């Protein structure tokens, strides 16, 4: 299984340097490129920047609920993590346990 990244230009350069060759950069329609990724079945892990994840919103969420692979991990972009962005896994934890779990 391959590792793929869906991100903006700067992050893409970084990941290409690290040796990932399946890099998707959305130009214009994010949905279109997302559908293209969905169709491929050789991707094991997909890293996606939070900004794009936010833009995809419901599509991404539905896909994650119904599919086990690829494993989708949200990563920060050049400007760091989005402030009021709640990632999928935290939502899931909240739903399963009933409270938000945070250790300081």
């Amino acid at each position, binding site marked *: *299984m*391959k*590792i793929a990244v869906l991100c903006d230009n*700067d992050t*893409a*350069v*970084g*990941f*290409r*340097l*690290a*040796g*990932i*060759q399946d890099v998707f950069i959305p130009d214009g329609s994010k949905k279109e490129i997302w559908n293209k990724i969905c169709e491929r079945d050789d991707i*094991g*892990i997909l*890293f996606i920047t939070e900004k794009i994840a936010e833009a995809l919103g419901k599509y991404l969420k539905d896909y*994650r609920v119904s599919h*086990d*692979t690829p*494993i989708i*991990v949200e*990563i*920060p972009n*050049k400007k*760091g*993590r989005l402030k009021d962005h709640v990632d999928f*896994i935290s939502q*899931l*934890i909240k*739903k*399963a*346990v009933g409270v938000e*779990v*945070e*250790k300081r």
Partner: protein
Amino acid sequence: MAEQIIEGVSPTRMDLLDIRKKLILAKKGHKLLEEKRDALVERFFDIIDKKNQLSKDIGEEFKEAFLSLIQAQMILGESKVEESSFLTESIGEILFEEDNIMGVKIPNINTQNLKTEIKPSYGFFETCSKLDDAQVSFYNILMKLIQLADLEAGIKSLAVEIEKTKRRVNVLENVLIPKLVATRKYIEMQLEEREREDFLRRKRIKAILESKK
């Protein structure tokens, strides 16, 4: 909530025995499921701790990596950095395995086939050390991200299983067991009532027979 009884039972001794058996079974199942839920939650918290730590680390490392990348871009120019980035060899592929925690299947990522270290494949003639830094730090981040992906996949399957188990425990605790208890009580009361009626009838018949003598 009014106590409900299970539909379709007739107040007979047979059904009473049946209900008693069912109640014992339900209680046993409830205890087992409760244990399973607690064990899963314990495991869940373990993984969450690890995941939080890891994602915090990754966030900081990302900052540093982007810093070196931006510096490299400043020195070499964006297009040169992008060109160099295309030269890196592929990191290889990952394999999926399955782990089993109390009947929950959890994907496990096997990183055996990945390269263990990274060497710059662009010429060091035209590039600078900041690019090397950026490459190394992005590679390190990638390794950590793979671990994170592993943990997150585990969290996902555990969360689904915990929800399922929780629902089952709640159904047993709040619906099935009270229903069974109510039904048992209903049958017992009916039987007692019938016995009393019978007793009275016999007494009455006896009295009538006595008076006829």
